[in-house]
């Protein structure tokens, strides 16, 4: 270090920083858990969990921002329920893994000098993107499912783009740590414990190093992920419903994400003048009053409602088939539709239904839920419900079907 730096400062820097070319376990960081093998296991687990989140997140994005060259299928009906349930469950499970990984590699954060070679600069940028992206995604995801919004940005848009940053950083990090990870994860013959060779020395050493072993630490992190999953995943997986005591929603209560009061639709939805209009690219546009709508033949379907926040439940929905309305209006066979809500000023007041989903026999404009008239919060007088769609696209308080 330069002689221009005062000695006490030099000592302080020497004491609190680490050397980038020495192992994780160095200087004051004497824990045996600061180990490349532990870091490799945690890193590999995190890469798998984050990649699951990334892939399922892309599917959710395509559902909410449809592209014409990749129409989302209508079957299996519960596909989105599974992918989004897995997305949120993997995100929750990654909380302990991310924290443990950050703890293990903490000495690397205090590295001084921060870089010695050009490749060090590249790696530092990539690690900043990985830590920043990982912490941001996990924090914003956990806050979002608890409906806590301490920020001013749009959660879905920002979460989507930061996911690219985090996943890109994972790919780059994979390359920079490939050799050390491969070497660390390779099975090695068990070394005998010191206590097996010299009981006295072993007992003394165990006394000073007592605490979680590396295997114990990894097991504990896995247990923490498991417990978190166990007490939350019941919000989408009925088998574990009774154990979901820390889940943000209770599926048995048939939760909603936006109440009629918050959407500002109570007056319009209960007005006697309510009408449903079917218009757009059709031969015979028409409107129906509520009484005329109820006089039409109805169908029923058992379909899940699956929220982007990871909760879901299955219910029996009854109402008019969307394809019957399209046929009555003389819409072409390949018609897709936009469904408009009475709700104004919301990004979810219009949803797109592609030609596959629009003509599926289970896609309904529902008037009843489990045999009872829809409540206002569930979309009275009419809501869209179709197979393999996110809850935010199952538009409530429907007033217009526009064929496109």
């Amino acid at each position, binding site marked *: 270090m330069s002689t221009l730096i005062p000695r006490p400062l030099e000592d302080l820097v020497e004491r609190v920083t680490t050397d980038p*070319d020495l*192992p*994780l*376990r160095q200087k004051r960081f004497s*824990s*045996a858990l600061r180990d490349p093998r532990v870091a490799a296991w945690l890193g590999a687990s995190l890469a798998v969990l984050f990649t699951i989140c990334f892939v399922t997140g892309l599917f959710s994005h395509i559902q909410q921002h449809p592209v014409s060259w990749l129409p989302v299928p209508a079957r299996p009906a519960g596909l989105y329920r599974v992918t989004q349930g897995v997305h949120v469950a993997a995100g*929750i499970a990654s*909380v*302990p893994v991310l*924290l443990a990984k950050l703890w293990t590699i903490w000495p690397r*954060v205090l590295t001084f000098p921060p870089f010695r*070679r050009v490749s060090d600069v*590249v790696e530092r940028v990539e690690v900043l*993107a990985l830590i920043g992206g990982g*912490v*941001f995604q996990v924090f914003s995801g956990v806050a979002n499912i*608890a*409906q*806590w919004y301490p920020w001013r*940005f*749009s959660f879905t848009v*920002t979460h989507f*783009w930061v996911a*690219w*940053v*985090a*996943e*890109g*950083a994972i*790919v*780059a990090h994979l*390359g*920079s740590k*490939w050799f*050390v990870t491969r070497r660390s994860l390779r099975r090695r013959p068990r070394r005998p*414990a*010191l206590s097996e060779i010299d009981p006295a020395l*072993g007992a003394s*050493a*165990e006394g000073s*190093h*007592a*605490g*979680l*072993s590396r295997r*114990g630490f990894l097991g*504990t992190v896995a*247990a923490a992920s498991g*417990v*978190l999953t166990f*007490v939350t995943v019941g919000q989408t997986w009925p088998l574990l419903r009774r154990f979901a005591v*820390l889940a*943000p*929603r209770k599926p048995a*209560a*048939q*939760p909603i*994400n936006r*109440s009629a009061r*918050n959407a500002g639709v109570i007056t319009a939805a209960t007005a006697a003048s309510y009408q449903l209009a079917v218009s757009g690219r059709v031969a015979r546009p028409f409107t129906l009053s509520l009484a005329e709508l109820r006089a039409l033949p109805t169908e029923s379907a058992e379909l899940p409602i699956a929220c982007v926040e990871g909760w879901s439940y299955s219910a029996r929905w009854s109402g008019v088939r969307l394809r019957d309305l399209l046929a009555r209006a003389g819409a072409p066979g390949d018609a897709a539709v936009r469904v408009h809500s009475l709700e104004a000023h919301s990004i979810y007041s219009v949803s797109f239904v592609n030609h596959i989903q629009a003509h599926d026999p289970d896609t309904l404009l529902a008037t009843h839920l489990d045999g009872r008239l829809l409540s206002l919060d569930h979309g009275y007088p009419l809501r869209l419900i179709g197979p393999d769609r996110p809850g935010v696209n199952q538009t409530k308080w429907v007033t217009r079907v526009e064929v496109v």
Partner: protein
Amino acid sequence: MTPDVPSPPEVTRRGPLFWVTALIGGAGIAWGVRGLFAHHIDTRPANWAKFFVGGVILHDVVFAPLVLGAGYAVARLVPARARAHVQAGLIVVGCLALFSWPEVRDYARVNHNPTSLPYNYTANLGAVAAAVVVAVVVAAVGGWLLRRRSRPS
């Protein structure tokens, strides 16, 4: 546990794989950053940057030192034979508490959604934490009994 010697230094091999993945991963990062700025009306770059960088700083300056301090305290205050179990219990309960923080604080109440956060999360967190403590105690006592039984008389 097995007393251990420090691992050898990490081998710094930054060959073609490093640069190829840096290029592919860098393209992903650049695509994400481009999207964040291209959709600035929704992403509000100044605001997300505050949370992006703030998250790293909060972890490095507040959270990590707190955890290191807790680890130091456990190493000094907890007897060696119970230390591993106490550490395991603290890690699991700490993660549960951190995850359920927004639920316990009931930040969602401002949304006026009666179906959001339907439980008493303070009580539920306490119950789950108690179950974890019981599991840790059972594991500790079970391990002690097993070791005692297997010890040569």
